[in-house]
């Protein structure tokens, strides 16, 4: 086999992983299993980036989505769910809304695939980290700084929210221990 067919083989393997775990994420009834399926999807997308030699994008995908977001998801789940066996089923209204959004996205993406023009070839040089950094701090400086200000606002908000209420002495478990969490 030549290198192109190896690449195709790798692509299909990763595509099956991405699609399969996306399906699993929708069909699973347990929230931690959903999160792990999401890891499969996001990690698979990172692998697709690696396959396209966009290593920087792939690594950032791994750090930001697969690493950071999933840690936070699992973190949130552990603080909220009461037991391992909790089942989650969407209500009919939710299912309907999800179907509508899904169909709209599907139509939009297919339309985009048919109308867009796609660059091809080797992009190893154009996607170097040094170049991305330079572009971010020159051409795209304003959006970059706006994103930074947004993140700063989020951090200040988070710091404000976790302030203890009042001056009551801290009980074991904190002043605002979650109720009904036996």
């Amino acid at each position, binding site marked *: 086999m030549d290198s192109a067919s190896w690449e195709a083989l790798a692509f299909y393997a990763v595509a099956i992983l991405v699609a399969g775990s996306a399906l699993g994420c929708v069909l699973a009834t347990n929230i931690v299993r959903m999160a792990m399926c999401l*890891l499969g999807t996001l990690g698979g997308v990172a692998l697709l980036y690696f396959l396209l030699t966009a290593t920087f994008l792939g*690594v950032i995908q791994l750090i930001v989505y697969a690493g950071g977001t*999933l*840690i936070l998801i699992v*973190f949130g789940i*552990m603080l909220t769910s009461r037991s391992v066996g909790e089942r989650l089923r969407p209500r009919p209204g939710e299912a309907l809304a999800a179907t509508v959004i899904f169909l709209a996205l599907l139509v939009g993406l297919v339309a985009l695939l048919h109308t867009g023009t796609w660059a091809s070839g080797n992009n190893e040089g154009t996607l170097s*980290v040094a170049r991305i950094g330079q572009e971010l701090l020159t051409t795209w400086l304003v959006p970059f700084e706006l994103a930074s200000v947004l993140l700063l606002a989020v951090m200040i908000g988070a710091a404000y929210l976790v302030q203890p209420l009042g001056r009551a002495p801290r009980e074991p478990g904190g002043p605002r221990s979650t109720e009904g969490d036996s």
Partner: protein
Amino acid sequence: MAACLSPVGAVRVGTGVQKFAFPIFLILLLASIALAWAPALLWPNKPLLVRDVLAVVGVVAFVSLFAMFAIWWERKVAARIQSRLGPMRVGGWHGWAQSLADGLKLFQKEDIFLAGADRPLYRLAAYIAFVPALCLFLALPFSTAWIARDLDVGLIFILALLGLGVLGVLLAGWASNNKWSIYGAMREACQMISYEIPLGFALLVPILTAGTLRLTAIGDLQDAGFPSWLAFHNPFLLIAAVLFFVATLASCKRAPFDLPEAESELVAGYHTEYSGFRWALFFFAEYAEMFAAGALAAILFFGAWHSPLPAEWGRTWRSGPLWQQALHGVLFSGPLWLIGKGLFFVYVQMWLRWTLPRIRLDQVMYACVQVMLPLAMLNLLAHAVWQWLVPADSLLAQIANGVCTAIGAVTIVAILATIAYGLFHRRRLVGTLVVDHRPGA
């Protein structure tokens, strides 16, 4: 008691392996020197697939062998620090085959599944802990030529995979459906997320100096001998090296940050419910991460795969007579130096583990948020200002370089001298009773 007074070494001259220990060591040394020369000879002519398969097999072999060796080594280090002998029976010479025996035992143990556990996730957790720890070695350079994939973003690739390991621990704790496991997992998540921030800030300092994320490029900046190692360029890099090392201790779950598996509080933490080979995978992952963290510290701050002597000196030897080539092979061999430095940092991690008490979770958080984070941020700022205002060839930069080199040299010599003292007086430290019982000790 008369036996105690006689010279201990004369009581029993070694068992099988002890007799051959030196030749085996010499053969291994020669083999690794030969290997150090191999890639330049073998690599360019092979198809990509063959190279990749060889690289992956090499990485898996290295990680497995290193983990087995490190487990035995940790037990010996722990024993010496506690005035014991540690494993002495299996295999003959200092119980060298202990890990092999443990591995065989773990292979044949029953793979227990709990009734209340989430089975697929319980199975998956061990793999999720182990696979990232293995994959990061694909981007870890053992020398300029000895790297499976020389990525443009090698450093953050390794960082991302080090961060992914926490998912396995979280999942293991949750899927076990056991209070203690989930406490361990939550502690790990909390600690890992917090310490990634000072870790990142500490890493930015050498990145700022090198101007690249490519690990081979960062390594080759430091080829002009001991004073050119990045940690000794200015005081801020030295502080960054210390911060980096402490943060990696936390992210590898090593003492004093080993709360996720605190034996005295949580049974065994997140892996309480695991048995057999699944349990071993967690330890393989932990030791692989320890070595990766040590090797990363060496690459970023302590001269990567370069010897303390300037690489310039070796250039002429390489084409000289055979003895010069051999000397060059030993003194300037990249993989040997990198593995040596990595092992040194792994040793320091073990040493700290068996010396320091475990700290409480609130102390862990305090140390991170109130001490390390501000220090790391100020350090980055100060380094940026330094780099902006002080040219590399100015007198101030040279004085800073000299002072930091001296501090580094004194520290390293002191550590090596302590190790040598301990080694020389090991019989006294172990105690006469033990020596009497196992004369080979």
